[in-house]
C-alpha cells in the first residue's frame, strides 16, 4: 500500500470515529458522560499525534537510509606509523589527528557527502556530553538567520544553517533550547584539543567572564599531581571536534522540489540506493577501532597552557 493511501485511511478511520462520537454525544444520557469524555480525550489525542509525530516521521531525511549505512560499512580505518587514515571505496583517503577528529576542513564523511555514524570513541564522547548535561547550555542548531550565520561562522565563511541530514545518527538529539553558552554545531576544528582540555579544566582562565562549570572531575592526576585528561574528556573532545563542516550536507540545488511527501532522497543517495540490488554488500573492515593509540598519548596538561 502506498504511504499516502495508508495515511488517508488512518485519517478516514479517526475522522469517522470522531463523527460517530459527536453524534453519540448529542443523544447521550448523563450516565454515559464519563465514557464519552474518555473516548473524546483519546480521539483528539490520536489526531494530534498522527499529524505532528507520525506523518513527519516518514521523512526520509530524518533517519539514516541504506546509502548512509552502506557507506559506513565501506569505510576503512587504518593506522600507519601511528597516524590514523580513513579510506573510502573510491580511493579517497585522508588523515585524522590523534583524537580521530577531522583536521581543519577535512571531513570524516564519505566523499559524496553521505553522513556516517560515530566511531565508538565519539559515541562514548556523546554519552559523556549527555551525562555532564552540556545540552542544557549549548544548542546544536544554527538558525537560518543573519545573526546566527555570522556569529558561528568559521573564518571568512558563514556558518551554514542546520540541515535535516546532520542529525540522522544522533541518539539522543542535542538540539537544545537555551544558549547560555554558544552554539556548538559548527565548533569542530575551531580550537585545538589542548585548548579544549584546558577550557574544560578551567573555563575562566581560557575565557574570562565565562560562567561554565569547571569539569575538574573529568581529569586524572599524574605522579606529580598535575591534571591529565581522562578517557572521558578525551572522548568528549573527540566528539566536540566532529561538530563542524565535516558533518554538513547542504545542497539545496540538488534537492528535488516536487513530488510525494517531500524531497527525501538526494541524487547521490538514490544512486547508492539503486546500486544496492546488484552489489554484494560486505563490510570491508570492522569500522570501529583505530583510536587505540589515544591511550599512549598522555600529554601533561596544566591549566596555564
Amino acid at each position, binding site marked *: 500500500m502506498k504511504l499516502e493511501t495508508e495515511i488517508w485511511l488512518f485519517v478516514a478511520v479517526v475522522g469517522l470515529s470522531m463523527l460517530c462520537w459527536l453524534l453519540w454525544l448529542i443523544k447521550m444520557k448523563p450516565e454515559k458522560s*464519563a465514557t464519552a469524555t474518555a473516548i473524546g480525550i483519546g480521539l483528539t489525542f490520536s*489526531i494530534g499525534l498522527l499529524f*505532528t509525530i507520525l506523518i*513527519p516521521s516518514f521523512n526520509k531525511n530524518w*533517519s539514516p537510509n541504506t546509502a548512509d549505512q552502506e557507506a559506513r560499512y565501506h569505510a576503512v580505518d587504518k593506522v600507519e606509523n601511528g597516524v590514523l587514515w580513513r579510506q573510502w571505496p573510491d580511493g579517497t583517503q585522508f588523515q585524522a589527528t590523534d583524537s580521530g577528529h577531522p583536521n581543519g576542513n577535512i571531513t570524516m564523511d564519505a566523499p559524496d557527502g553521505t553522513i556516517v555514524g560515530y566511531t565508538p570513541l565519539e559515541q562514548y564522547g556523546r554519552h559523556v556530553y*549527555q551525562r555532564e548535561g552540556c545540552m542544557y547550555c549549548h544548542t546544536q542548531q544554527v538558525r537560518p538567520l543573519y545573526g546566527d550565520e555570522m*556569529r558561528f561562522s568559521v573564518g571568512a565563511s558563514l556558518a551554514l544553517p542546520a540541515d535535516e541530514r546532520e542529525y540522522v545518527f544522533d541518539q539522543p538529539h542535542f538540539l537544545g533550547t537555551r544558549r*547560555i553558552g554558544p552554539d556548538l554545531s559548527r565548533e569542530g576544528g575551531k580550537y585545538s584539543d589542548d585548548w579544549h582540555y584546558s577550557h574544560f579544566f578551567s573555563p575562566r582562565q581560557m575565557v574570562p567572564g565565562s560562567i561554565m562549570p569547571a569539569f575538574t572531575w573529568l581529569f586524572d592526576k599524574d605522579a606529580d599531581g598535575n591534571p591529565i585528561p581522562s578517557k572521558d574528556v578525551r572522548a568528549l573532545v573527540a566528539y566536540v571536534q566532529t561538530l563542524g563542516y565535516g558533518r554538513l550536507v547542504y545542497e539545496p540545488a540538488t534537492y528535488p522540489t516536487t513530488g510525494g511527501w517531500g524531497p527525501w532522497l538526494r541524487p547521490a543517495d538514490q544512486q547508492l540506493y539503486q546500486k544496492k540490488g546488484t552489489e554484494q554488500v560486505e563490510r570491508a573492515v570492522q569500522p570501529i577501532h583505530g583510536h587505540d593509540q589515544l591511550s599512549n598519548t598522555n600529554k601533561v596538561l596544566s591549566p596555564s597552557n
Partner: protein
Amino acid sequence: MAVDQIMKIQPSVQPERLNHEDVAAKWALWASVGYLCMFGTLGVITAIKFVIPDFFSNYDWLSWPRIRPAHVQGMIFGWLLPMYMAQFYYVVPRLTGTKLYSEKLGIATTIVWSIGIAWATFFLLDPANSLNPWLMTKGKEYEDYDTVSNIFLFVGWVMLLWNLGNTFARRKYKQMYAALWYIMGCLLWTAFVYLIGNWPSQLLPQYAFRGLNDANINWFYGHSIVGLIATPGGLGLAYYFIPKAANAPLYSHKLSLIGFWTLGAIYIWNGAHHMIYGPIPYWLQTVATIFSFLLFIPVFSVITNFFGTMRGEWHQLRNNVVLKFLMAGTVFYLLTCIQGPLQALRAMSAVVHFTDYTIGHAHMALFGTFTLYAFAGAYYSVPRIYRKPLYSEGMAEWHFWLSFLGFILFSTALWIGGFMQGIEWTDPSIPFIQTVRDVEPYWHARAIGGMLMLTGMYLFAFNLYKTATVPAPKATEGQLNVADGSEAVATA
C-alpha cells in the same frame, strides 16, 4: 451551599452524608510538600550558580548541568503531580458523591511514585560515572529521568488512574461537572503522553527514532507536559476551588465545555513551535504556530469563566488567601497564554528563542499559574482533611506576597534580560561572552526573586505541618470557613 448547588448540578440520587477518610490524600500531600522544599532549594542553587559559577564547584553532583534537570523534573514530577494527586483524592470523591475506590491503593501509589522520584534524582545528580543508558539521564529536556524510574512513575500513574477511574464509575451524581472532565483529561493524557515521550527512542529498533524524530517526540512530550498534564490538572482544581472558595456558582457551563474540548484538540499540535527556525520542515513549524494561536480559544473561555465566577465577589480577595492565590494564578495564566502564542511567531522567536525569556515564560505557567493553584488547593483542603483550622492565616498571607512579588521580580528580570540578550545576538560584532556578561545584573535579580519564592515555600510547608500536628478541637464547616478567610460569608 452544598456542592451540587454551587456547581449547579442536579444530582439524580441524593447521596448520603459521607465521611471521607482522605488518608491517600494525606500521603500524597506530604510527599509533594517534602519534594517542594527539596527541589525548590535546588532551583535557588541553580540560580546562584549563574552569578557565582564556582559556588559548590568541587562537587560534581552539585554541578549546574546536573541540578538543573533535577530541579525542573523534580518540580513537575515530585511536587506538582503528587500535589495534584492529593487534590484529586480530595476533589473527586466529593464531586462524585462517593468514597474513594481504595485508600490503600492511594497510599501504595504515593510509595511507588516516591521511589521513582528518589531513584531518578539520585541518578541525575550522581550517575557514578556510569554510562549505562538505562540509568543515565536521557539527555533530553523534560525527558531527563532515566528509564528505570520512568517505569516506576508510569506504574504509579496507572495505579492512580485505576483508583480514580473506579471512583468515577461508582459516582452518584450522573452528570459530570467540568472539574471532573479536566481531571479525567489529566489522568488519561498523562498516561498517553508519558508512554509516548519516554518509550520509542529507547526501545524501538535501532535507527527508528533518532535525530529529528527524537527531537520531534521530545518536544511533543515537552509541550504536552505543560499543556496536557499541568494545564488540565490545574484548571480542573481551579474549576472546583474557585466556586468553592468564593462561595459562588460557576459563571458558565457551556464555556467550560468549549474550553475543555478545544484544549484537548489543539494542545497536541504545538510541540514543533520549540524548533521554530530549526532543522524541521517549514510546514511543521507553521502548523505549530497556527495551533499556538488557536490556543486563545480555550484560554479565553477559561479566563472568562473564572473572572465571571468572581463577579460581585471581588471584595472577598481582601481577606481570603485561597482566592488570592487562585486569582493571581488566573492572571498569570492569562499573561503566560498571551506570551506563548506570540513567542511562537517567527519574528518573535528569532529574537527570544534560546534566551532567558523562554525560562521566564515556562516559570509563569508552572510556578505562576499551576503551583499557585496547587497552593490554593492545599490551603483550602488541608484544614478540611484534618478538620482543624489553618495554623496561621498570617503566615499564609506572607507566603502569598513572597510568592507573588518574588515571582514578579524573577520573571521580569528574565524577560528583560532575555530579550536584551536576544537583541544583542542579532549583532554579530558583539562577542558572545559580552552578551553573557550583560545579562548578569538580571541574573542577580532572578536569584533574589527565587529566594523570596523559596522562603514562601518553607513557610507553606511549616504552616501545613503545624496545621496537621498542633492539637486542636475538631472544627465544623463554619469554623473552617473562618480559617480560609471567608468569615464574611460564613456569618452572613
